[in-house]
């Protein structure tokens, strides 16, 4: 088994928009025009006005890969995937809310009446 002991230092991508449309498309094994479609329905919100100058954040890449999976596995259209993503985000926020007040859905309520 080959173990690489060399220490790898990567670039951290966060809230700063750095990924170009080509980089985003490549990371999703998709075409640039699919990315344009996703921007068109508001799933991705790049900085910059023309597509050639668009820059995307980490959250855009994570979202785009999710859309790709939903399209592949459910045959969802981009619009349907957008609705799914909105609803999933809302569920996630509600779960975080529950967790904050100590009502973790996984553990059930801490008290009962």
């Amino acid at each position: 088994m080959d173990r690489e002991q060399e220490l790898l230092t990567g670039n951290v991508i966060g809230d700063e928009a750095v990924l170009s449309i080509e980089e985003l498309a490549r990371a999703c094994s998709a075409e640039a025009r699919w990315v344009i479609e996703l921007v068109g329905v508001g799933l991705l919100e790049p900085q910059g006005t023309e597509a050639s100058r668009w820059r995307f954040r980490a959250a855009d890449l994570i979202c785009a890969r999710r859309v790709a999976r939903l399209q592949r596995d459910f045959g969802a259209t981009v619009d349907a995937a957008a609705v799914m993503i909105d609803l999933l985000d809302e569920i996630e926020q509600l779960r975080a809310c529950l967790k904050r007040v100590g009502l973790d859905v996984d553990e059930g309520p801490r008290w009962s009446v």
Partner: protein
Amino acid sequence: MEFKDYYKILGVERTATADDIKGAYRKLARKYHPDVSKESGAEARFKEIGEAYKVLHDPEKRAAYDQLGARWQPGQEFTPPPDWGAGFEFTRGTVSPEEAVEFSDFFSSLFGQFGRHAQSAQAPGEDHHAKIFIELEDAYTGATRGITLRAPQLDAQGRVVLRERTLNVQIPKGLREGQLIRLAGQGAAGIGGAAPGDLYLEVHFAPHSLYRVEGRDVFLTLPLAPWEAALGATVNTPTPTGAVEVKIPPGSQSGRKLRLKSRGIPGQPAGDLYLVLEVVLPPADTESAQRIYHTMARELAFNPRQALGV
């Protein structure tokens, strides 16, 4: 490796039509898809379902698989027979490296032969993706983590085999959930001498027994004795960088938040650490403890339900 019964995994008969198979797959996908399901083990289950569907919805793969089916039982030790694949031509490519990572050794042994038609052309390697779970403390100090990835490679016969490789990755200080570490050139190898793809690591925090993280901010529930909360006190609290003393203001109630500025995840700007106070009652399990509670009941004119009008 074990023989897998793809029909059983999708819950369909061997005589199922293409529509039956699609229907069964869609139903299971709704239940187990990692993007929409919170069932534990959903991800592993969905991989199995996806793999079964990949084979059964493709008429060529299904026919080839059916030839095997009669000879093997699920869970039985399996090696591809020497005549495997003879007489079948897998026109639709076979399996992409991305899929090979997700699918089982059983699948790869059957369908993992790369179509080598693209060999003459140059094409950059695909980008790969993986999740990395780091400790909250790593984000405070920076760290080095070894991560093990299964990556598809071609063996001498042109078959896809999964090799484990371990990468030593620098975890920079200030890393947050939802960020990506992009490791240039650590994705799939390029074809025909083209550049390799990149590896994107999606950062997650491993669940912590004490702390909860929201963006840059970190939350800790700090238990207090009633007298500490009522009278004010200086108490010790853990923080991800070590214990510190904090001043509890008098008259603090449960749920009150104390903000320790810039003691959240480091960065520009750094996050804050919030101490969520929680008053804990000492048990009244000895005579003297009961006496103290009785004294309080007698001496303090306190009605916690005043606001309820009773």
